[in-house]
């Protein structure tokens, strides 16, 4: 790895880019709209899946049929019609780009602003990128370097073929098919996603990274991610999203499962930037995600997320602290602007002794948006000396947005120590004038204040990701005060 330079990377990705790049006009093979057992079977068949996988999907589908969409979240939207969605679309042929002109200019502009424009996108020498385009993974890089260490990092559809024993053992072990409405649907129809396995005692030498993207209008995106860190191993996993502008609402219901065995550590960082809808609240992605990790003895899982996109976000990355001395962390920045709605937070389930969890949530609301933090800290009866610290800060911009905090605490063990702090502040005229007086215009001043507010979380992101996230915050709040 050490010999692999940034130039090599750039070179490799330049070719990859043109082969697989962000191309909007891909002829895709698409299933008819709607979902039933035949569709589920067809998806499984398309992927050439073994019998057990097909059965697993069908079981999930049967459960899903009996479930109802949850309504408890503080979000309001026109429910997607699940029979109007096509559950499978795969690029038929590899797209060929003749020039950059063929790329959605809106998207190019966003990439440029983020500093991940097509040309330099491939940026970071130590990031392997597994680009998921629509529902099928079309590019995987760095496979060999990883293979040397015995690390498996591949589309989950391939993993089902090549490492069925691992997938079978762990899939659904943290998020069971019966877990919730969206997780059940995902289990039935997921088309692809990523699989990652770090062997015992191995430290993954690079940040593993996946770019998700919705490409086909009206195609639901059901990604499935499974990360297994074997005993004493370490991995940092990055997930980032961009989506092109859409008129129709697009459903995204991913499931992410993390398994940290004894003494293992998983860092999972997300920058989520799905299309949030236009200034009137039209269009935009519905993001209903189930993310959960389980920690065995002395294991640690950290979720760090920067959420700026989506029309509606419903997402609670959680940790089950099953092993003794295990540690769960949740660091989150959620930005809502215009008509966006976010209901996000975490669950920390303390089961083992001396388990520790930290929750830092930063909500930023602008425009007419609604931003809710919902968190559960649960201490089981056998979790002696469990500790939790939660801090939820809200920053409001203007008078038409809302910030809400719903902390739930359930303790069945008296030795638990739980601390909760919450603040709400507003960007004041006086702060803006102070910055203006120092030559900093209002737009830049807001960015500065917001970055300061979010700092504790931004600091948790891998360096390069943090820079990108910072820019994303600025873009998301552009024109929100004036």
């Amino acid at each position, binding site marked *: 790895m050490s010999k692999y330079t940034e130039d090599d990377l750039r070179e490799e990705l330049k070719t990859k880019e043109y082969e697989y790049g962000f191309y909007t006009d891909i002829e895709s093979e698409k299933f008819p709209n709607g979902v039933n057992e035949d569709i589920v079977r067809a998806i499984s068949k398309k992927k050439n899946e073994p019998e057990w996988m097909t059965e697993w999907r069908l079981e999930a589908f049967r459960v899903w049929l009996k479930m109802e969409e949850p309504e408890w979240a503080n979000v309001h939207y026109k429910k997607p019609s699940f029979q109007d969605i096509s559950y499978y679309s795969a690029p038929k042929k590899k797209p060929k780009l003749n020039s950059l002109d063929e790329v959605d200019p809106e998207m190019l502009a966003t990439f440029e602003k983020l500093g991940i424009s097509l040309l330099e996108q491939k940026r970071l020498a130590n990031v392997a990128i597994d680009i998921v385009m629509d529902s099928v993974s079309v590019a995987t890089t760095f496979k060999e370097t990883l293979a040397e260490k015995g690390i498996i990092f591949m589309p989950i559809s391939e993993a089902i073929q090549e490492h069925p024993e691992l997938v079978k053992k762990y899939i659904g072990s943290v998020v069971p098919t019966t877990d919730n409405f969206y997780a059940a649907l995902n289990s039935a129809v997921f088309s692809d996603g990523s699989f990652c396995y770090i062997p015992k005692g191995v430290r993954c030498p690079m940040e593993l990274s996946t770019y998700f993207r919705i490409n086909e209008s009206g195609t639901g995106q059901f990604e499935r991610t499974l990360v297994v860190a074997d005993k004493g191993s370490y991995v940092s996993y990055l997930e980032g999203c961009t989506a092109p502008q859409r008129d129709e609402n697009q459903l995204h219901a991913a499931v992410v499962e993390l398994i940290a065995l004894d003494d293992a550590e998983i860092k999972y960082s997300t920058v989520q930037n799905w299309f949030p809808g236009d200034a009137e609240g039209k269009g935009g992605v519905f993001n209903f995600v189930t993310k959960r990790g389980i920690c065995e003895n002395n294991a640690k899982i950290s979720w760090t997320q920067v959420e700026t996109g989506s029309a509606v976000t419903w997402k609670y990355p959680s940790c089950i602290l099953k092993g003794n001395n295990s540690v769960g962390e949740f660091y989150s920045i959620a930005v809502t602007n215009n008509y966006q709605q976010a209901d996000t937070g975490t669950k920390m389930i303390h089961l083992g002794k001396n388990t520790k969890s930290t929750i830092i949530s930063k909500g930023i609301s602008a425009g007419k948006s609604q931003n809710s933090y919902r968190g559960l800290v649960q201490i089981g009866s056998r979790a002696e000396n469990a500790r939790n610290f939660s801090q939820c800060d809200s920053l409001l911009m203007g008078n038409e947005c809302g910030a809400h905090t719903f902390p739930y605490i359930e303790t069945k063990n008296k030795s638990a120590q739980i601390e909760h702090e919450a603040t709400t502040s507003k960007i*004041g*005229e*006086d*702060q803006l*004038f*102070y*910055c*203006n*007086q*120092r*030559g*900093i*215009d*209002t737009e*830049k001043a807001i960015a*500065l*204040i917001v*970055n*300061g*507010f*979010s*700092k*504790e979380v931004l600091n948790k992101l891998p360096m390069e990701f943090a820079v990108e996230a910072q820019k994303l915050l600025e873009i998301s709040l552009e024109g929100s005060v004036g």
Partner: protein
Amino acid sequence: MLKIENLHAQIEDKSILKGLNLEVKAGEIHAIMGPNGAGKSTLASVIAGKEEYEVTSGLIELNGEDINELAPEERAHAGVFLSFQYPVEIPGVTVTNFVKTSINESRKAQGLEDMPAKEMLQKIREKSELLEIDRKFLSRSLNEGFSGGEKKRNEIFQMAMLEPKLAILDETDSGLDIDALRIVANGVNKLKSKDNAVIVITHYQRLLNYITPDFVHVLHDGKIVKTGDASLALELEAKGYDWIKEEVNS
């Protein structure tokens, strides 16, 4: 440098400045004194362009240019600096980051590149030494948890970094103990040149022992009612403001 003629300004229909005249030339130090509520901070805010204040009539010129229509940041780019009476907190933004942003935004407005990091660091070192500021202080969040004295010293540090043409110090002396006062005054004196000007707003004569003004003005009820040299400050210290009020009213 600064010329103010017959300035009237109000906030929320309450008129505060009522026909104020003031001329400050390059190389000069002016002191503005006056009782609480006279309108001193209002004058400073109006010069700096705070939008809540409405200028109803009169003229403010900076280097011969009417600045009434300029945004506060544009005035800052033109060299106006205000040391606030009550500096605000910006959590999570370090003093260094803030000053760096401030300098680079001004440079950008002048079509210059960002200041090279090396130069920036050197300048920070130099100015923090001048003002006897511990460099650890610069890594703290701007004004968050600062003592009154630290806030004021930080204002002067920013002034030293930005090297403004016209600096307005609004009660920078209040909250400073005698040592800090000396350090701050020394800093201001060092930065003073024939090309820039300083307006010192103060309640007390104390600061003027260290910063010698060329002119002392008394602001009362929205107008400058008396102007003199440094000795006027001593007289005010001895006799208070009542005699001036009487003079005005008679």
